[in-house]
């Protein structure tokens, strides 16, 4: 089937981005690799027929979260190389633990019925109209809760990030200013 080749390429891209993000020495490289991983996941969603989710993933993760992470790296002066060997004892222990978790998960996936029973069904035809109706009717309460939570999170983030010395100034006017020269 045609889906598997593109799926495989995108999966490898995503995983390579993830591994690079977790192992590279320079933090900005990590952030860029993370963005590649996010974009690969977005493409995977599109590949699986969830076009809207993929584009939302691209818009939020690559357009906002990756940029936020990059800003945070520059603001905390962590853009220099991290002084830590990749193969430290703690690193090896963590990697082994993660490997163990993967082994358990993979065993569960392979041995469960899901791996064998689910035949490849035709891609569900979801139009934007249906998604809109679902958001506005069935899922309208979660939508409102999410809106409230986003507002609360935004206010909270501004309060946390605003500098105590200049508390009266709104955060968005000062956040982007020359981070490298600060402190």
């Amino acid at each position, binding site marked *: 089937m045609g889906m598997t080749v593109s799926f495989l390429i995108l999966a490898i891209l995503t995983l390579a981005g993830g591994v690079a993000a977790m192992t590279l020495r*320079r933090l*900005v*490289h990590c952030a*860029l690799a993370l*963005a590649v991983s996010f*974009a690969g996941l*977005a493409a995977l969603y599109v590949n699986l027929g969830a*076009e*809207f989710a993929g*584009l*939302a993933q*691209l*818009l939020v993760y*690559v*357009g*906002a979260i*990756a*940029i936020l992470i*990059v*800003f945070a790296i*520059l603001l905390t002066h962590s*853009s220099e190389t991290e002084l830590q060997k990749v193969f430290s004892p703690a690193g090896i222990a963590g990697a082994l633990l993660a490997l163990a978790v993967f082994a358990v998960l993979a065993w569960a996936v392979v041995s469960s019925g899901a791996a064998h029973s689910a035949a490849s069904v035709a891609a569900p035809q979801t*139009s*934007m*109209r249906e998604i809109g109706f679902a958001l506005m009717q069935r899922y309208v309460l979660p939508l409102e809760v999410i809106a409230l939570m986003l507002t609360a999170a935004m206010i909270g983030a501004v309060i946390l990030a605003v500098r105590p010395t200049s508390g009266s100034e*709104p955060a*968005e*006017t000062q*956040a*982007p*200013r*020359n*981070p*490298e*020269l600060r402190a």
Partner: protein
Amino acid sequence: MISARSADQVFVALDHWIVGHVPAPFQTLASIVIAVAMIIVVFAALFALTTVFERKGLGRMQNRYGPNRVGPWGTFQPLADAVKSLTKEDVVPHRADHVVHYLAPLVLVGVVFLSYAVLPVGRNMIAVDLDTGVLYFFAVGAATELAVFMAGWSSHNKYSLLGAMRAIAQMISYEIPLILSSVAVIMIAGTLSTVKIVEEQARYTAGIAHWNVITPWGLAGFILFMIAATAETNRSPFDLPEGESEIIAGYFIEYSGFKFALFFLAEYIEMFAVSGLAITLFLGGWSSPVSFLAWIPSWLWFFGKLLAMIFGFIWVRGTMPRLRMDQLMNFAWKFMLPMTLIVILSAGIWRFLSPAVVGPRPLGGVIRWLVCALVIFAPYILLARKLERGHSMEKRTYRFAE
């Protein structure tokens, strides 16, 4: 009438003809290649044209000649520029992060060209008719910020980093009004597909098209969209990321030769793309404004509107001085954002004031128009007065070198 229709569909017919001559297994591939090649060739040519147009136009506005040495009236200037940038030495700073420095312009150009996939440049002339077209446009555009950051950070130069930071702050701040002002259109059209949004506007009542720009929310939304688009593409008066007099050239200061040309190209291509989206959302896409001009081919309408928009950009660049960083941010968050929300409110009111509510066509339409205009205009006056308070407009004296 037959000839008009065939002129309208000449490129579509040509595309079908070429694809028809390709062996069957490769037909999908061939149509993809043709679409991509057409987009790149046409818009790169438009870029070349625009550089001359802009320099001549700016020259005219500033009482000078502009380029006039190469070819008749300087029209071959882009060729000379291309040769120059291709043959120039490609200087990479010693301490630059070479991989990221190399990738940044490529990512930027690639991402910017991707957004053309959902722009309908004529009837049946679109690369991919996505159900989520407008969302796709913004989602792909979001990656340009990362490319700008890559360019600024990898150069290892404080001016380039400052320029990148300014650019990202500006692009994020103005992306919100840009998306919100298109939400009004999406709400009224009830679809995210660019093709359907254009078709919705290509209907005629009494010979006049249903363009969104002739409604009050559409007009206000269009103006807000264009301001946000100017900022999003880093055009003057929002060209702080480049600010030659402050941070020399911003994030692409350390780029030379062909890579610099790529940045230059990306900037213009992005401007065309965002103008194309504005045409699609507000100016009826490829449709003609009045029904008796509908015989003119649809792609001519689209490119005519695009050229008019480009002229608008050049005019604004020749007219407005550059903003300060704090003015830029205050404008985005205190003026643009509330106004776009009000535009959405007005669009909602427009939707519910159907002829069944306000009465039959001529009078009801006028009432509906006035009510929606009032919903936008009254908050605008209040907001503008509030923002202007304490900022008197009398003559100010600046003291330099304090």
